[in-house]
């Protein structure tokens, strides 16, 4: 059990840092950039993606021996689509306001490259236990980046941070002059480019040492 737990942790950490889906693998960017204009959106999108990742990984790993190789992609997609439908309908029912903001991005989780990439690249060849860890790690990595971007963009773009109708941080006078470009489309590209450049610099420094 001891060994099992440590490998679970290892798989989790891999998705979180070394193979972070957004920053390192650069898959599934579209949704991440589009919804990260608010911190709150990041919370819901992160939960939705993690949910679909964990469960689709789990089911695919469980039935992987019975899937014929030639038609595995359609099977993956149907499994993923079922979980996305669950998220789609539950979010519409319980959080209609959030659902209307996230809009087309929830159905688009089906074609989010992260999920198919993990199904094909990981869950199809690994055990159920490890696949769950992988899904959790990838989901957590995704959520962290989306939250961080949402934090920067909302704070710089509006001068305050609103979570569940409560203002958490307010920059006071800055809010009157806040450049709204950060919550608009170009801001997403700019913020992400700067994050990537920072990561590059960090990696370059580490290899120099």
């Amino acid at each position: 059990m001891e060994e099992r737990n440590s490998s679970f942790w290892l798989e989790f950490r891999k998705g979180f840092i070394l193979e972070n889906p957004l920053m390192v693998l650069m898959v599934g960017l579209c949704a991440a950039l589009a919804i990260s204009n608010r911190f709150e959106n990041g919370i819901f999108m992160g939960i939705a993606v993690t949910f679909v990742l964990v469960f689709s990984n789990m089911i695919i790993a469980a039935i992987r021996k019975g899937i014929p190789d030639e038609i595995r992609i359609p099977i993956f997609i149907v499994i993923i689509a079922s979980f996305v439908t669950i998220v789609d309908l539950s979010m519409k029912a319980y959080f209609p306001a959030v659902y209307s903001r996230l809009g087309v991005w929830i159905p688009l989780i089906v074609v989010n490259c992260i999920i198919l990439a993990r199904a094909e690249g990981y869950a199809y060849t690994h055990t159920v236990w490890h696949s769950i860890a992988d899904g959790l790690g990838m989901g957590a990595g995704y959520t962290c980046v989306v939250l961080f971007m949402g934090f920067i963009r909302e704070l710089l773009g509006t001068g305050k941070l609103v979570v569940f109708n409560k203002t958490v941080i307010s920059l006071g006078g800055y809010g009157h002059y806040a450049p709204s470009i950060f919550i608009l489309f170009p801001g997403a590209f700019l913020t992400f480019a700067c994050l990537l450049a920072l990561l590059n610099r960090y990696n370059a420094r580490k290899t120099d040492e």
Partner: protein
Amino acid sequence: MNEVYRYFLIFLGALLVYNILLIRFIALCPLIGVSTQVETSIGMAMSVLFVMTMSTAASWVAWNYVLTPLHVGQFLYIPVFILIIASLVQFTEMVIKKTSPPLYRAMGIYLPLITTNCAVLAAATEAVKPGFLKLNVVYNFSLPEALIYTIGVAAGFGLVIVLFACIRERLETAPIPHSFRGAPIAFIIAALMSLAFMGFANLLGL
């Protein structure tokens, strides 16, 4: 509003005002991944145009004649559309392979990728499922309108990806700060192009 003008507005809206890549962030992966050369970008744009038009037509028929009469559209549209797209891509691949080997070699690698290109699913969903689209011209597309809309979306995709590739080819020789080489500078360009496309907002009242 006369018919032709309406079609024109739908097309223009999809092409520029609500550009799928720069304004709505759909299908960024090929934008960053494929657009390093102009030629490959053109190949990608053509295959997207082809698959997208066919899949929207098929999804429109499925939505209006199968899913809606059976009252299962709300919870079955995601699997149904994605299956339509996946099988169409497979079908297109086989047809092109048989009829035109040079074309197959030119765009062969992109075809399977298109299945997971979110733009195709997004266009299909928006063209048939009213409510996602914010265009105030029309709300519930008829088949010709859905097709015009899809061609606009695909043309917008092609326009941006080819322009983007042109800039990236020039960047190969530009002196870029070390940390920004590769993907970061691509995102900076995307930011600038997105700014430019924001200038189209409110064009013709769209």
